[in-house]
């Protein structure tokens, strides 16, 4: 019927409407992940393949970054501690900093850049070239095969990478401490483990699981919802990194508040 239609009139404003629609769509994507993740058949083979891609192939970059972070942080902290004659606290200081915050954060940020962008670009490109549609018409569940496998892989691989980063960073720190303070490896690690508590390790692992989930689900969401065309693929890759990094910082802040509340309760 001719006339003025109110159907396309924004509820609040176009931008705010779009924000809330995007939020609802993201929540329903996460909800679908949990619905599909616990429903058989489970794609173990693809999860293993993705874990290899995400974990093993990230090792060189993670190793280099972790090692350098360990050395740099030790060298930067030394002058301040020297002023108080407290250089013997270096192993304890480094271990707390690395295990509580720097290990998970550095690993997650590198993974967001390396893994998140590649997931966003890969799924985005599959969407644009109708490969996801091809799965669907062959009665294959693309969400389960692409999204669940990648998100599960990042969720479980990031904590492993974080533990590895912690170790490499501490080794970097040891080299610096050993060269300047002549501390042996065993003494260094005794001091490291004395300084960290079960809560530090536990919260670090839980935090890493959340970071891993965030990187996977954001990459998949952005790729799965990329608009048509090659420009959309680039945008999906870029948005995956930006959004994942933003959420990781927010999560880091929340975890800090929660863990401190537990620690000082």
């Amino acid at each position, binding site marked *: 019927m001719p006339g003025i239609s109110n159907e*396309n009139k924004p509820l609040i404003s176009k931008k705010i409407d779009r924000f809330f629609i995007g939020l609802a769509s993201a929540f329903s994507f996460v909800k679908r992940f949990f619905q599909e993740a616990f429903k058989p058949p489970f794609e173990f083979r693809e999860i293993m393949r993705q874990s290899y891609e995400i974990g093993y192939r990230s090792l060189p970059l993670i190793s280099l970054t972790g090692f350098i972070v360990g050395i740099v942080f030790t060298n930067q902290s030394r002058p301040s501690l020297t002023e108080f004659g407290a250089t013997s606290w270096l192993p304890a200081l480094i271990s707390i900093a690395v295990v509580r915050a720097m290990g998970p954060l550095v690993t997650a940020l590198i993974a967001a850049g390396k893994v998140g962008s590649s997931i966003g670009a890969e799924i985005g*490109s*599959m969407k644009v*070239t*109708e*490969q996801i*549609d*091809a799965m*669907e*018409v*062959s*009665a*294959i569940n693309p969400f389960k095969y692409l999204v669940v496998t990648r998100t599960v892989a990042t969720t479980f691989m990031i904590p492993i990478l974080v533990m590895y980063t912690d170790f490499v960073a501490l080794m970097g720190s040891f080299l610096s401490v050993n060269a300047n303070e002549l501390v042996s490896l065993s003494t260094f690690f005794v001091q490291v483990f004395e300084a960290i508590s079960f809560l530090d390790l536990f919260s670090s692992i839980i935090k890493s699981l959340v970071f891993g989930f965030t990187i996977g689900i954001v990459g998949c969401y952005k790729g799965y919802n990329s608009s048509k065309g090659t420009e959309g693929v680039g945008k999906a890759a870029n948005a995956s990194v930006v959004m994942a990094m933003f959420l990781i910082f927010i999560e880091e802040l929340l975890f800090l508040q929660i863990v401190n509340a537990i620690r000082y309760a």
Partner: protein
Amino acid sequence: MHNEENEKVVKIRGLKKSFDENHVLMGVDLDLYKGENLVVLGKSGSGKSVLIKIMVGLLTQDEGDIEILGKNTAGLSLKEFNKLRLKIGFSFQHSALYDSMTVKENLVFPLTRNIKGLTRKEIDKKVDELLDAVGLPQSVNQMPSELSGGQKKRIGVARTLILNPEIMLYDEPTAGLDPITCGDINKLITQVREQFNTSSIVITHDLTCAKATGDRMAVLLDGQFKAVGTFEEVFNNASDQRVKSFYDYNFIK
């Protein structure tokens, strides 16, 4: 080619689909008979691809009924619909081959996902048979990026045939191909019907392809079929000027 007593494998009634203000399909009725090749013609953006995408559930209709192999798709659960999907082969306009997999893996992927308990020997045999059927036995270990446009189309068809579909849907099978390769693809479409006993809907705006592959034509204009019949019936006696001009543009008089 068909009479009313022939079995209808697809029956579409009153199909409507709009994208915001763009009314693409406005009450489409369509019958596909067992064993026939029906060509849906129309200019770009007329809703031809939308029609077959609705049939396989990639898009949902706003209104209307679709009955495929005697089952109304609206009332089916996802599990039931997936069972029905296995009987429908969909050949994509740009082939949609999985670019991280070899040709063989592209074929094996839908097969092993849907049919359990196949031995490696049975799988290899099936793959070899289909690659032979599409004339590309040598490409088994190639990556999609190493194939030409025509070869990709052939592998795309082989991938859909691996599940023994009863209905084939071809979305612009000759788009972007040179005339010789177009001819090869047209032959392949006819050969698939004969060799695999399929009924097909071919979406195209290429009248050469339509004439070579179709038993019946249906011209989609303004969201509805304006002319349905054999090639001669549609174009020789076309009363609608736009149907006539469609012919004139393809075969310059």
